[in-house]
């Protein structure tokens, strides 16, 4: 191997030695020089090779064997193509051919070569022509450098750069790097798209050129902050080329690269968030406005029933502020009676909440009498409703109260009026009762003693005296009738019997039986259909029929009375009608005839004028109405209704 190498070396240096052959000194020098070059060749990191005109290696140094992963022996006489991937053959051949033909050395760009084990390496070649003694080009020699490491590092760098650019470009927001002068050093695609400037335009721009006028001062302050403190963030409006302002949340960082300081910023478009916030603020403002200005008293208590929020109306109502009310115990807030009811309700709420018997949207109602700062009290009515989390667990309670003081006081006044009325009614009953006994006795005395006078002194009285006595007696009798009628009328409401099922046919029968004499005397004919069963007071209903039919019999015209009684079911009530062919009534008196002792006819027709008053009062006690249709001379039809009701369902 060595001899071969020596021979090769001699060939390499052949042209040099040719001129100085025969000179011993020169030979020695030559030997020294040859030794030197040989050492260089063998020790150098770069590969040195020689290729003949067929492309086979005729010489390689150790470095070439290292580069290609083979041994020198096996590589000699082999074609260089062996060590080049096929796709590179043509370019390699072209380069070699060019040097071979022109003799001009060529430096080749780093290319891929194959190692013996098939792995790739990167090699950089410089190729020179190889000439014989005559100067003819007989092959090529080349110096090869393994640049694999360098190349891989370069590739990794490119990859890294592409990667980071991809990352930067795919960031949801904008990304940019500016230097201390505000010039854009880097930016991502988004940044370009958002502001709408081209790369050329951006080149001559400063960061503040894309900031809204009103935010420039803020921008300056923030830049100072970043370069001084290392980081800052802010919300700022960016102006696009088209003049549109877009709010961004910018986070900026100071980065120092070598001698230069940069600011690296990322920004996120917050217009949607701001819009949502604005909408929320607006909605919250509305709610607050509503809550604060509503006359309703809105309050929120936590799950332990501690007051946490109170509307202005709530503060206004009692004069105690929220803060004052927060620390007031229940007995300071409401009257003892209301406190007791509140506690009962709270217990109930807690129990139902624990038992789960509390339906999701059910609310509780309570009326409370609140103490006010001025010492007065006010009634409120409050609806209480749980506010629940997503799991349905009660987290707090919303209370919606209403000032019902006026209503309550009106109710109280009404209650008092009712009681007064009841008492006055009772007094009236008492009066009526007294009247039935005590008013009649003196009357009887007058009547009886005038009559006794007449009886005893008959012979001593002149005809006038007898007339006078008659007037006195009939006056007393009339007075007695009035008192009795008034008593009957007053008893309708108070001495009525409980309602029972009543057969109206029987009622009619009883009524006409009571009127038998009058009916017979007047020659009245009474027609009727089947009458229904109703729930009512039989005795009183008999009175109604009797009074109305009695009137029909009494107020007859030339013709004998003809009375028609009927009942129709209209809606949920029976409408009874009693139609006659009597003298009729002028419509202007329709209301008057129902008033106590109001009579339309003089002494032609007997009676006090209580009958219809009693009838209507009975009908009203039964929950019905009574009215009439009539024209003078055309007869009258009296109507009255009796609502359908369940047995035992009283007035």
């Amino acid at each position, binding site marked *: 191997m060595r001899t071969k190498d020596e021979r090769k070396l001699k060939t390499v240096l052949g042209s040099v030695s040719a001129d100085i052959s025969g000179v011993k000194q020169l030979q020695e020098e030559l030997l020294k020089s040859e030794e030197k070059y040989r050492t260089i060749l063998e020790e150098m990191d770069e590969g040195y090779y020689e290729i003949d005109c067929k492309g086979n290696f005729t010489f390689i140094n150790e470095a070439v064997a290292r580069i290609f992963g083979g041994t020198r022996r096996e590589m000699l006489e082999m074609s260089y193509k062996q060590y080049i991937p096929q796709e590179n053959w043509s370019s390699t051949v072209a380069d070699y051919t060019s040097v071979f033909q022109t003799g001009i050395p060529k430096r080749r760009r780093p290319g891929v070569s194959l190692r013996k084990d098939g792995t790739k390496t990167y090699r950089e070649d410089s190729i020179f022509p190889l000439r014989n003694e005559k100067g003819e080009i007989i092959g090529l020699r080349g110096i090869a450098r393994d640049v694999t490491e360098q190349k891989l590092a370069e590739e990794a760098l490119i990859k890294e750069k592409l990667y980071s650019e991809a990352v930067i470009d795919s960031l949801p927001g904008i990304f940019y790097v500016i230097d201390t002068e505000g010039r854009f050093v880097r930016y991502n695609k988004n940044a370009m798209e958002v502001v709408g400037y081209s790369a050329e335009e951006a080149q001559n721009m400063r960061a503040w050129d894309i900031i809204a006028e009103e935010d420039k001062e803020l921008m300056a302050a923030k830049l100072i902050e970043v370069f001084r403190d290392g980081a800052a963030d802010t919300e700022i409006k960016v102006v696009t080329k088209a003049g549109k302002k877009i709010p961004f949340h910018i986070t900026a960082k100071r980065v120092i690269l070598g001698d230069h300081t940069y600011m690296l910023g990322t920004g996120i478009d917050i217009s949607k968030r701001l819009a949502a916030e604005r909408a929320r603020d607006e909605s919250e403002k509305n709610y607050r406005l509503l809550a604060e200005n509503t006359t309703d008293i809105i309050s929120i208590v936590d799950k332990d029933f501690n007051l946490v929020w109170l509307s202005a109306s709530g503060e206004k109502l009692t004069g105690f502020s929220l803060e004052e009310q927060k620390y007031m115990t229940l007995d300071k807030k409401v009257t003892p009676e209301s406190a007791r009811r509140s506690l009962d309700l709270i217990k109930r709420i807690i129990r139902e909440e624990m038992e789960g018997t509390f339906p999701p949207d059910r609310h509780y109602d309570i009326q409370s009498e609140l103490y006010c700062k001025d010492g007065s009290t006010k009634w409120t009515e409050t609806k209480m409703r749980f506010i629940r989390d997503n799991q349905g667990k009660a987290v707090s309670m919303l209370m919606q109260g209403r000032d019902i003081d006026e209503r309550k006081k009106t109710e109280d006044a009404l209650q008092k009026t009712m009681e007064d009325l009841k008492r006055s009614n009772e007094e009236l009953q008492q009066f009526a009762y007294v009247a*039935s006994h005590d008013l009649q006795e003196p009357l*009887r*005395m007058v009547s*009886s003693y005038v009559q*006794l006078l007449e009886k005893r002194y008959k012979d001593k009285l002149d005809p006038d005296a007898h007339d006078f006595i008659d007037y006195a007696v009939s006056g007393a*009798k009339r007075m007695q009738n009035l008192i009795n009628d008034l008593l009957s009328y007053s*008893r309708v409401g108070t*001495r009525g019997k409980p309602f029972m099922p009543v057969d109206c046919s029987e009622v009619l029968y009883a009524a006409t039986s009571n009127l038998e004499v009058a009916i017979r005397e007047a020659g009245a004919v009474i027609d009727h259909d089947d009458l229904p069963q109703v729930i009512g007071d039989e005795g009183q209903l008999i009175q109604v029929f009797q009074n109305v039919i009695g009137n029909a019999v009494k107020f007859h015209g030339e013709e004998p009375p003809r009375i028609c009684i009927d009942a129709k079911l209209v809606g949920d009530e029976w409408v009874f009608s009693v139609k006659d062919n009597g003298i009729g009534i002028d419509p202007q008196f329709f209301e008057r005839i129902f008033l106590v002792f109001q009579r339309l006819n003089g002494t032609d027709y007997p009676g006090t004028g209580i009958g219809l008053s009693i009838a209507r009062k009975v009908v009203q006690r039964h929950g019905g109405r009574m009215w009439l249709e009539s024209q003078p001379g055309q007869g009258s039809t009296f109507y009255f209704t009796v609502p359908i009701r369940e047995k035992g369902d009283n007035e």
Partner: protein
Amino acid sequence: MIQQDIAVKPVDILLVEDNPGDVRLTQEALKDAKLKINLHVVNDGIEAMAFLRREGKYAEKPPADLVLLDLNLPKKDGRQVLAEIKGDCDLRRTPVVIVTTSKAEEDIVKTYDLHANCYVTKPLDLDQFIMMVQSISHFWLTIVKLPTDGR
């Protein structure tokens, strides 16, 4: 007061009435009666019970054969007097006629519930009044058969 007649055994009627006019009318009505009647008059319920039980100043009075009882009386109301009479073993057989102005149904029901023997209202007409008093005394003292040891 009517004079006692020794020959015919007189009947004793107790009139419980606070109105002197009615007392007088009753007396007038009984004047024409064929019976020998001793009309005893008391003006209130307490006196009435004392008379019937022959207490105090009434110790010497005879037992009443018939009681004419008004309902509205001072001190002790007629209903209470009625209840006491009918609750008393010695008095309950004595007929009690309620004579009153009231035509009120509840008064009628209530007094019969308390075992009144009958209920009549005082008529306004004098003749009717006289007839009423006479009818009552005639019916209860001559027609009706009462136990002989009723007293």
